[in-house]
């Protein structure tokens, strides 16, 4: 195993011609087995994933919505935090590829009996999955598992850190409408500090050539936000929306903070909510995104969420195709180490 690993590493370095940015242990640059985050991922690699995701989307329209690609491969969805949409999306994606998909949620597991997270993961690994899809409330869990386990790790969101497949499906939904993100302006509004969706999206959108504005109350903008990508910071929503090509509204996440993070829903909604009035500040054909689940009436007014500019349900549909692309990439990299190159 060790030998095949180093062989793969050598081969992939060969291909890149050594032009990679200096190694970041956390993101395991260039190791295509894992998708831990978008930090440090090259634009070409992001574009490659999006290209294949568009091809996978066609499978969803077929009379028989299934391809045999991952037949005999096992995908375990290991969710240490509740999630319906992301887990279901990964599950559907795996099944459409003919993989065997097993859902393992922490609430129903031995974690409640006191087992550590790593022990749980090691036990699951002993059941020989090819890909482990991991969702956790703590940042860095996918990276820790990638260091300790042999199977491919795909992050389905870790703490406040990253949610790579969400950002990729957002980029896919924008590219579907625009063709390219180059030179477009995208505003991200809400609790930037506690949002892994914002964390991955800032990295992804700036890498694809978009101009990114982040907007929220001072308490919700992280100090180091510019280190994630070139962004401008706004504390008034009108400023952020002015002539933007798209706006991404983030969900107010009360579960991520033990203390109240703003005075009242009404005040937040009045100052930072997207409504039928301020939506007019956007470019005429601007797109409206939300990663879901929405708090209707708080960060977004129902008439806007359901309006003609909203691509919120496109995001969900594209999510399945995007995750098919990601699972194929991960599972294939595992398989490639087991069989000799052709």
């Amino acid at each position, binding site marked *: 195993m060790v030998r095949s690993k180093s062989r793969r590493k050598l081969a992939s370095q060969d291909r890149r011609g050594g032009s990679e940015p200096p190694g970041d242990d956390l993101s395991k640059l260039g190791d295509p087995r894992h998708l831990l985050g978008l930090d440090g991922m090259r634009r070409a690699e992001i574009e490659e994933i999006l290209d294949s995701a568009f091809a996978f989307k066609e499978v969803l329209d077929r009379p028989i919505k299934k391809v045999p690609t991952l037949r005999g491969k096992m995908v375990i969805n290991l969710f240490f935090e509740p999630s319906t949409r992301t887990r279901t999306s990964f599950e559907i994606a795996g099944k459409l590829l003919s993989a065997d998909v097993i859902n393992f949620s922490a609430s129903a597991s031995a974690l409640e009996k006191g087992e550590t997270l790593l022990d749980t993961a090691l036990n699951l690994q002993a059941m020989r999955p090819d890909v482990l899809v991991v969702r956790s409330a703590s940042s860095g869990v996918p990276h820790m598992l990638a260091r300790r386990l042999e199977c491919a790790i795909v992050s389905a969101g870790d703490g406040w850190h990253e949610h790579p497949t969400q950002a990729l499906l957002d980029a896919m939904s924008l590219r579907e409408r625009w063709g390219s993100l180059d030179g477009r302006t995208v505003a991200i509004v809400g609790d930037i500090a506690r949002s892994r969706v914002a964390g991955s999206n800032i990295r992804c959108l700036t890498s694809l050539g978009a101009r990114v504005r982040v907007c929220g109350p001072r308490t919700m903008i992280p100090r180091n936000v510019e280190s994630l990508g070139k962004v401008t910071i706004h504390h008034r929503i009108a400023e952020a929306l002015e002539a933007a090509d798209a706006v991404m509204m983030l969900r107010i996440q009360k579960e991520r903070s033990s203390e109240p993070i703003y005075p009242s829903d009404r005040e937040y909604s009045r100052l930072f909510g997207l409504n039928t009035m301020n939506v007019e500040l956007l470019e005429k054909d601007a797109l409206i995104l939300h990663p879901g689940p929405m708090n209707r009436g708080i960060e977004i007014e129902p008439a806007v969420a359901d309006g003609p500019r909203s691509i919120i349900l496109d995001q969900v549909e594209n999510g399945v195709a995007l995750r098919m692309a990601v699972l194929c990439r991960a599972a294939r990299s595992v*398989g490639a180490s087991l069989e000799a190159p052709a």
Partner: protein
Amino acid sequence: MRHDELVERRRLLEEEEIHARIDQMAAGIAKRCPDPEALVLVGIRTGGVPLAERLQRRLASRLDVHPPIGILDITLYRDDFFRGLEQPQVGPTNIGFPLGDRFVVLVDDVLFTGRTVRAAIDALMDFGRPRRVLLAVLVDRGGRELPIAADVVGQRVEASNDETVEVRLVETAEEDAVVVMGERAR
């Protein structure tokens, strides 16, 4: 085997001959299809697509048969998906009509091992149950690894296993030609 290390060893067909072979193929397809209304062409990406388009034009202009055309990418059905270090790029498939009860002609440029055709047949079945499937190729170079044969062949050629038969069509290349490529002699 990297493609840029290959050099042209011999030329098998030139432009005029390719035109003539495609005419013959169109006639062969029309002859075998008892019900022109049910005929559809499906080009296997990437080499089969421009060839299918040419066959479609010939069928229309010479024989007044107007089959619709589909594009099939077989990457997800390949038997070597998990081999090799390069990530295979999945390309778009576009079959905009039901295949149930149709007379389907699979079109590819070169028939070699038969593995691509095996994958293509599996993929087709996920789009419906055709009445019949035929295989039409511009070049059959032998070397089959599966029990598969073409129904309509433009040209049969001899090539050894270390050679690559390349079909160049102006839609995607600089010229119309069929050439045999091999490694540079050392």
